[in-house]
């Protein structure tokens, strides 16, 4: 008897409830099938009544249940263990992601520091070292680097990289001037005289050029400076520019440069220092010598007895006085140079901005950056969510597979 015959005989017997086959063997099979079916256990009457009532009532709860989650953990300890392991893994993934993001944030937070170049606190004099001749040092994109101080005719240069962060002129914070250390800072018992100068190139939108120029003057006034000369050319095209020659008190130079840098985008910034101590001392000594000579001449004049002698001494006195005046002027000039720093500010039209279209261009730029930021955040979220979802799906599938295996294994042990 083949498989097809067996199946059809079984189905026929179960459908009709009788053994209808003529062949004795087939009939025996059908009788066996019916015997097995008729011998199937039947539910007790009371159980049936109870079930009928429960179904009719919609299976009301018979006793207070444990909370679902707790009950699940109680009944399926392996599942609970898997859940705990998954939670731990998720926590590790999130922690790693957060820690990674923290490092990135630190890097990002460090960037603005490069946008605001600052002179070293003491300037070239504060960290002065003995030296002679002339020298200079340059530090690109490292505005916090201390400039080397130099003895004799020494110079130090600080250049900052062009800043890419635009600062609206109207948003310029007004801070109280911070006095800079004076040029008479004493190191090793010697008073040093330093002449400071700085050059700024600011990039601003064309339509803001005039406004930035006004603010340059305002900053200069605020810090007690002088505008030696200024020119702003608004040609209405690409050639628009501006130039300011300023003198700022040295004690206010740091604060003034900071405020000037915030008026627009800093495209370049250069600071120079020149030690003029030697010239200063030389002029001072020369004055002292001339004064001593003059004093001596005056004594000789008082003791002169002849007209010729008096005339000769007076002639020498005129010469000495003339020399003294010259030396004094030179000293005053040096003092003025060391007390007032020379600052030149150049205004240029910022690249990518042309007149009124700057607003729209900036808007597009901001839109692009916002989209990039959003995409970045979305990718980060996906980067965390996808592994977690895969992990949960894997755990769920593994649990279902294990449960099925355990159930089939229970059947084998029957």
């Amino acid at each position, binding site marked *: 008897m083949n498989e097809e015959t067996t199946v059809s005989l079984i189905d026929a017997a*179960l459908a009709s409830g009788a053994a209808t086959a003529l062949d004795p063997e087939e009939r025996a099979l059908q009788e066996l099938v019916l015997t097995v079916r008729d011998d*199937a*256990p039947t539910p007790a009457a009371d159980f049936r009544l109870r079930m009928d009532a429960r*179904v009719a009532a919609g299976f009301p709860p018979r006793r207070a249940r444990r909370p679902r989650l707790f009950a699940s953990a109680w009944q399926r300890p392996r599942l609970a263990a898997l859940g705990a392991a998954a939670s731990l893994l998720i926590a590790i993934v999130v922690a790693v992601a957060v820690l990674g993001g923290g490092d990135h944030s630190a890097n990002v937070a460090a960037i603005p520091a490069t946008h605001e170049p600052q002179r070293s606190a003491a300037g070239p004099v504060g960290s002065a070292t003995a030296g002679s001749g002339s020298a200079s040092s340059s530090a690109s994109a490292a505005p916090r680097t201390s400039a080397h101080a130099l003895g004799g005719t020494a110079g130090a240069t600080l250049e900052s990289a062009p800043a890419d962060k635009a600062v609206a002129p109207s948003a310029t914070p007004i801070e109280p001037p911070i006095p800079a250390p004076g040029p008479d800072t004493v190191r090793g018992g010697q008073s040093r005289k330093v002449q400071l100068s700085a050059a700024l190139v600011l990039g601003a939108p064309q339509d803001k050029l005039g406004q930035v120029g006004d603010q340059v003057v305002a900053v200069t006034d605020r810090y007690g400076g002088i505008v030696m000369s200024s020119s702003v050319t608004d040609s209405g095209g690409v050639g628009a520019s501006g130039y300011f020659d300023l003198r700022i008190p040295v004690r206010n130079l740091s604060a003034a440069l900071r405020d000037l840098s915030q008026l627009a985008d800093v495209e370049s910034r250069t600071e120079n220092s020149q030690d003029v101590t030697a010239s200063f001392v030389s002029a001072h000594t020369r004055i002292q010598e001339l004064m001593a000579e003059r004093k001596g001449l005056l004594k000789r004049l008082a003791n002169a007895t002849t007209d010729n002698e008096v005339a000769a001494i007076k002639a020498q006195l005129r010469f000495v006085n003339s020399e003294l005046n010259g030396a004094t002027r030179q000293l005053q000039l040096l003092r003025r140079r060391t007390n007032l720093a020379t600052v030149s500010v150049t205004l240029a039209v910022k690249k990518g901005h042309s007149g009124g279209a700057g607003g729209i261009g900036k808007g597009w730029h901001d839109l692009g950056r916002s989209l990039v930021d959003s995409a970045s955040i979305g990718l980060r979220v996906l980067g965390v969510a996808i592994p977690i979802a895969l992990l949960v799906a894997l755990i769920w599938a593994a649990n279902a597979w294990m449960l099925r295996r355990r159930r089939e294994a*229970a059947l084998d042990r029957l």
Partner: protein
Amino acid sequence: MDRPQRRIDSVSDALVEQLSPSIKAFNTPQGFEELYRTTFPRVYAYVASLLRDRSAAEDVTAQAFERAYRKRSGFSARRGTPEAWVFGIARNAALDELRRRSRGAVLAADAADVWSPGPDEEAERAFRREEVRAALASLDPRDRDLIALKFAGGLSNAEIARVLRLSESNVGTRLHRAVERLRKACRE
């Protein structure tokens, strides 16, 4: 799932849609009650045949119907007929009960506890029944499971395929072999 099995499933789904218009009403309490009335004796017979313990069979049957009632909104015709779905739940509950028994201290039930022959049953028929029971008891548990689903549960081969996650042709083959083994056991 292999390709032939998927094709079988799609054909079965189509048949379910055509032949069981009550499926859509199955989600309502009335529809579920109708399903209960048609399947309750068969589900109990199958579970009792598997567990061979009247008390446990009652608990498991009640548990299976309650679980089906709670999950009835999640039923999909893709899972086959409602009958096959209920039998699948009952089978899982019965196997869980067997797992609990194998784990802990559950008293072994008397195999004869499930069957309660009537007092006026003819001796010859009673003898024949005992003979068949003994033959069934000697079978492999998987064969017993299959025979219980077919004869006590009254499921079609397609429905059994759904419950056991096998192909319908595989069910036919296994059923043929199981019946052959049963006949051989009866002859011995």
